[in-house]
């Protein structure tokens, strides 16, 4: 799996990230870091504890990371959640579906990255 294929698989924008970060090595280096990023775990934990401030910050950080790496799909869902939390939405009926979407996208993204990591050693 090439970096480009990985991006296609996780619905990211390879052209964009390549133009900004310039080398495949660098892109891959930072993609792998996403696996160790704590913001997703923090997001889930904070929503569970209804610590909305922290949840907003975690969603916001996740969004920023995806933006920098052009992981578009996850960026969009994280963005949606982050904006809702910022606007003060606290209703689980609204938040939980958004969180579920983020979770789904996040899992897909991490799976793709793991695959990339494995195949390329």
């Amino acid at each position, binding site marked *: 799996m090439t970096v480009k294929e990985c991006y296609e698989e996780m619905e990211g924008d390879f052209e*964009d990230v390549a*133009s900004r*970060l310039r080398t495949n090595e*660098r892109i891959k*280096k930072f993609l792998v870091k996403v696996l160790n*990023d704590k913001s997703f775990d923090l997001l889930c934990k904070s929503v569970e504890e209804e610590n909305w401030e922290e949840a907003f910050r975690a969603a*916001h950080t996740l969004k*920023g*990371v995806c933006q*920098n790496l052009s992981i578009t799909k996850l960026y969009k869902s994280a963005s949606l959640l982050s904006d809702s939390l910022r606007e003060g939405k606290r209703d689980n009926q609204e938040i939980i579906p958004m969180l579920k979407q983020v979770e789904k996208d996040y899992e897909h993204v991490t799976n793709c990255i793991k695959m990339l990591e494995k195949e390329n050693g």
Partner: protein
Amino acid sequence: MSLRENNNGKKKILIVDDSEINRSLLSDMLSDEFDILEAENGMEAAAILHVREHEIALMLLDIVMPVMDGFEMLAVMKENGWIKSTPVIMISAETVPAYVDRAYDLGVLDYISRPFDERTVRRRVVSTIMLAAKQKELSYMVADQIYEKEKDNRMMIEILSNLVEFRNGESGLHVLHIRILTELLLKSLMEKTDKYKISKKEIPLICNASALHDIGKIAVPMEILNKPGRLTKEEFEIMKTHSAEGARILGCIPMREKEPLIQTGYQICRWHHERYDGKGYPDGLKGEEIPIAAQVVALADVYDALTSKRVYKEAYSHEKAMQMILDGESGIFNPLLLECLKDLSPILKEEWDSVPTGDNPRKEIMSIVEHMMEKEELGASERTLQLLEHERMKYQFLADLSSEVLFEYRAMPEMLLLSEWGAEYLNMPVTILNPREEAFGNQVFSRKDFSHLLDGLKAATMENPVIEENYLLNINGSLRWSKVITRSIWSEGEPPKYEGAIGKIVDIHDHIVKVNELELMAAQDSLTGLLNHAAAKEKISSILSKDKEGKYMLIMVDLDHFKEANDRFGHLFGDEVLRYAADKIRACTRSTDIISRVGGDEFLVFMEYQEEVKAQVERIFYQLSGRYKEFVLSVSMGIVCIKGWDKDYKSLFQLADKAMYNAKSKGRGRYCFYEK
């Protein structure tokens, strides 16, 4: 300008972002040309800036972060003045104009929105660093030029007015004196009121113009100017023309009527002999009709004239001159200005004679000189940094050697920096942000003690900045008495602002424990372990003085025929009897009661009573009646009961003693209450 700071070091960039990935992305893009420092939030960044403000060439700052976000960080930077020395680029996904505007308003130089690419980041970083350095350089160059220009201007004015002075047979000192006193008066006046709307910029202008006040004397004939005796009425009339004449000269300078220096000079020349009551010349202006510049120079002129030697008079002392001015002997002045003069009196008395005479009149160029010094600092910035580095090394070395906890406390934002040795000893990080909420402020110190300490630091004064206080600290689980010595620190400048403190923590636990043991030993009777009489007396006295209402009784106990025990069975046996008696008394009293061996075979018990005293007394009495081995134990007891006592311990003791002798004289083996 080179991006390299010195041969081995690169310029340092501080990246502040809560996401590790984002930090390392930036770091990756910049680390080949710069040294990167990282902080996870504003608090951590503040901790770094506190120590290394001048080393950081640029800061990249995120907005949304835990603990302290980007906007709060900018506010802190403004508060501490760091924003002036450290250029900031904000990096954020927020493109809402309100956010961008707010960032610029708070002093950031550039704003990069996510997602960023390498070229943009590098180029913006480099150009912002360049720009900040250039700006600094330029402002120094401008200050430099202004200084040169100012110097020439002042010199021209001084040459001109000295001309007048020399013709007047005076030294050039008068001009200098007036300039300085004018400035002192103006500053003092500005502190008192803003009703004259004098701006800071106008002060040097008025001071410069003050040198021109007597320029009109050029039109007064030499014979009158330098006449040693009193002037005739006619001569005085001619002399008086100098104020209007000076104004006319200034008014005649073509094309320059609108120049502030000329306008102010005109006011000063024309009206520096007006009086506040309207009886001056040439126009008889009254009160606030006289422009404030002229009022100030008039007062300065009179003070200097009085304290200087003139052809027609000797110099008066400062005190005499002050008295003459305040009594209205030398003209009538604005009462507010007289207040200012009075306030300045100590300075004038101390320093008037030592006012410098060279070409560097100190005060008015002070602010420019300060700029100059800053400029030198810029030129020598590398050397300064090296010195700082040395100082840090020295400090660290000494701190490590001393086996004491050294710390620095910063009030804004609140943080505590520990010496490395201290951090290890306390098992804490070197930098503690928000120490009140961390283990340091609520475990090592109790929360209450820590607030007490911090309140004390803040309340310390510059006269007495050092505080010593003992606290019981929790050092890794064991409670130990420690001495905390601190020195509070304030910023330079007026008014000084409280910034924090430095201090050290010394373990004095063993010392305190030893002292307590010694105190205990000194208070005890070595044979029985009861209190000795001195200690009992002190305790009882303190109770009597504190509790003026309480019900207490004092019981004196004397072992009957104790001498016999010593004589018949030996002193060692006698000691056994005493110990036995002491144990018995201890057994039938409470720990709050005071029991003491008064001396020899006499004991004393001091206790509270409710209504019934007999039971308590008899309990002791019967405990001590019986037999110890071969010796028959019996006691004589004297008791005095009080309800409120306004006399001292001694008189109470005497009453109990009297009652005890009563018991003895009635045949021993009994107890007696004191009766009046």
